[in-house]
């Protein structure tokens, strides 16, 4: 029986990709695990390994071909003893295959999404894996895996067509590293390597720290975002002297309410107001249509011991600064103790990530999909600037907006920043 080598999906949203390079030619004998070709998407190049051994009987997609549909037959592997490709095995040229069955909405449902996706436009599909490709496993195997805390994506199925069955799960250890079985895997050897990278060598004295589920979710979501979302970046300097003055004035009042408004709280409010003014930026891309959100919900990145989490200030455009401040303190403290409710960190239309307190001047953040923008906020500091031909000292805060180009074009992003700048530099405008 000849085996078809298929165009792999490198992410759940990938529908096509470029066949960058063949590492083998017709007639070559390949072993299971040997790299046969490289696939390219906008953000990444991945090596595709043979999952069976045999001889390359036919190469159906030439190197350098772009727009190869996921699951299209790209080559045919002959098993031992076979000499030619059965006609039926190769639906050759007919520019192949149903274009990826996976719609972006079918995001893998993850047990504890750490970062906060906006409400998915369509219901999330059940099961599935960190890779996004469907995993075939018997109901019993799934049940046992769930009980033992085994990630099915890390298992090689011994059932018909690689289906994962009871015995595979029983033989697996909890927390088994996802790597193997699926075709688009990145050179998996003993210590599971980083995707697309060199193998990790573990020397004596090195330690192996099992992934927490939050870490796995962060890894999967960040990788997915970086690989599938076309990011561009806009950096701007905000003069925040007026904002600091306003903050002092505000705090005289709100301190009586037992809170203290931070610069970040004011940035939340300003972003919310700007998003209300630019609804096209408060949006998500789906294959079929654009989703523009009615509410302005701001996700705020909070660092915790266990990893990054993004609780949400809902309807931030309609809330006062004191209210935002009180909510934010509560969300942050519960995020740190791991007591957030699901709905408190799932959803959101825009994210703010602030590393100013660490003295970071400026940085670019990864978009928290399926949102379209994330604002990376740097430290507010005194800088010498030129005003009316003279050098003066001003408090300056640099921010970089990362934008999903599918949703928002450069000029639109810039206009959003202009609006934001107006709110931050003249905070009284937020009262309007």
């Amino acid at each position, binding site marked *: *029986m000849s085996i078809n080598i298929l165009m792999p999906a490198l992410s759940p949203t990938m529908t096509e990709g470029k066949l960058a390079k063949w590492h083998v030619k017709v007639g070559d004998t390949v072993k299971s695990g040997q790299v046969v070709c490289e696939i390219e998407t906008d953000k990444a190049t991945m090596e595709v390994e043979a999952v069976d051994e045999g001889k390359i009987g036919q190469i159906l997609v030439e190197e350098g071909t772009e727009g190869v549909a996921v699951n299209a037959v790209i080559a045919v592997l002959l*098993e*031992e003893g076979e000499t030619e490709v059965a006609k039926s095995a190769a639906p050759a040229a007919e520019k192949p295959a149903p274009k990826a069955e996976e719609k972006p909405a079918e995001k893998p449902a993850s047990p504890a999404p750490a970062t906060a996706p906006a409400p998915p436009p369509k219901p999330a599909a059940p099961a599935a894996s960190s890779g996004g490709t469907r995993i075939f496993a*018997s*109901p*019993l195997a799934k*049940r046992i895996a769930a009980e033992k805390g085994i990630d099915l994506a890390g298992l090689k199925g*011994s059932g018909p067509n690689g289906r994962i*069955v*009871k015995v595979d799960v029983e033989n697996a250890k909890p927390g088994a590293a996802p790597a193997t079985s699926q075709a688009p895997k990145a050179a998996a050897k003993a210590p599971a390597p980083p995707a697309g990278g060199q193998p990790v060598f573990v020397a004596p004295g090195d330690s192996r720290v099992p992934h927490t589920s939050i870490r796995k979710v962060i890894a999967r979501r960040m990788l997915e975002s970086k690989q599938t979302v076309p990011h561009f970046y806009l950096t701007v300097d905000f003069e925040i002297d007026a904002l600091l003055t306003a903050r002092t004035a505000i705090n005289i009042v709100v301190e009586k309410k037992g809170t203290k408004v931070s610069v970040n709280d004011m940035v939340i409010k300003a972003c919310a107001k700007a998003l209300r003014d630019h609804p096209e930026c408060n949006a998500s891309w789906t294959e079929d249509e654009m989703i523009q959100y009615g509410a302005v919900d701001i996700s705020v990145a909070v660092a915790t011991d266990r990893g990054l989490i993004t609780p949400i200030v809902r309807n931030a455009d309609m809330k006062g600064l004191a209210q935002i401040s009180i909510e934010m303190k509560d969300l942050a403290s519960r995020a740190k103790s791991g007591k957030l409710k699901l709905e408190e960190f799932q959803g959101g239309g825009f994210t703010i990530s602030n590393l100013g307190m660490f003295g970071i001047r400026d940085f670019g953040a990864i978009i928290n999909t399926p949102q379209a923008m994330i604002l990376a906020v740097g430290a507010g500091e005194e800088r010498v600037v030129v005003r009316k031909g003279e050098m003066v000292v001003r408090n300056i805060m640099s921010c970089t907006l990362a934008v999903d180009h599918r949703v928002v074009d450069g000029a639109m992003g810039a206009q959003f920043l202009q609006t934001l700048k107006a709110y931050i530099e003249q905070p009284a405008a937020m009262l309007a």
Partner: protein
Amino acid sequence: MAETSFDLIVVGGGPGGYVAAIRAAQLGLKTAVVEREHMGGICLNWGCIPTKALLRTSEVYGLIKHAEAYGLSVKDVSFDPKKIVERSRKVASQLSNGVSMLMKKNKITVFDGTAQLAGTDGAKRKVAVALKDRSNVTLTAKDVILATGARARQLPGLEADGKLVWSYKEAMVPPEFPKSLLVIGSGAIGIEFASFYRTMGAEVTVAEVMDRVLPVEDAEVSAFAKKAFEKQGMKILTSATVSNLKKGANNVTATITVGGKAQEITVDRVISAVGIVGNVENIGLEGTKVKVEKTHIVIDQWGFTGEPNVYAIGDVAGPPWLAHKAMHEGVLVVEKIAGVKGVHPMKTENIPGCTYCQPQVASIGLTEAAAKAKGLELKVGKFPFIGNGKAIALGEPEGFIKTIFDAKTGELLGAHMIGAEVTELIQGYSIAKTLETTEAELMATVFPHPTLSEMMHESVLAAYGRTLHI
């Protein structure tokens, strides 16, 4: 001169052997079968098939006798043993001819004769065949599969003589039906004959050495079956040893000991159904690495015997002695030989078993006792025929379906059924087990109404306290 060089030689043309040969031919192997008697083996000629023909007769006869219950009047019901047997033989020969046709169709060479392993010739195995026409021929092949089957076990003092004491073979072609009958052994073979002859009017006594009838079945099924048989007028003796058979001119007096007390009963005929032994003699095993234990060839999970390129399948390779097990083994061994990828060893717990007595019995997987012995926490469900609309309409309200789940994982560990047509139902659970479904999928499956199969659903629901119709 006929061809003598092959890729594969299968010794024995029973269900294991002929299926193995067909699969081999499909995979492009040049294949020969050596069969000493008739294609289809015991199953088709002297086992499964002709007994089903007989049991169909007794089933119809039983129904006619109860015609009034269905609002029918039937008078002067009688039967002709000769015609009953004739029908059974016709069914068998029709199917045996069918198998011969399949051999032709698949270009498999059949040798009528007996075969013995005869060493090697270079890389090839040699098989010496003594043909029916008394000529001899030596065949060679890379691989040999032994599928020689089994025969009735003969206990000292209880040997079948073919006249007064029958084995399954004589019991299947009686010149006339006995008025009274002792059946020794209540496994599938014994109980099917007991059921047949009882329905046809004989006084039947069953003597079982174990403490219950159908001893391999779930204890609840055994208990239910015993009651049902007794209701039909069968005499059931369990924990009973038959120690002596005194043969008269046209009857036999048997000494049966139950609980230390000996009793004598006199019957027209005795059927000895005390198990089977493997056909391991005269097939050239001497001097090979093939190991025989308790009359059966020892094999690994791929049917390999330890002797290079020699495999064994079916009854000769050990229990369960079931045609479908032999067929499945035949396929997997051939695929392994041919290098097919993804071949899996057989899972014994996924092999269903069927007994065609009245009421029918079918089962798969672990009995409740066996599951408990494994220390598993169980969910057990039971649903009676009396709660099923179709069963009532059929006039078959007796029986039940029992399912056993692992409480922790929801794995279907076993299913046990007794009642009308359960032998046709059990495959549903076989599929469930092969696909590794849990109770959730079985509960979510839509069973058609009105059918007996609804009880399969209800039994699963019952295991989780959710049964609807009782």
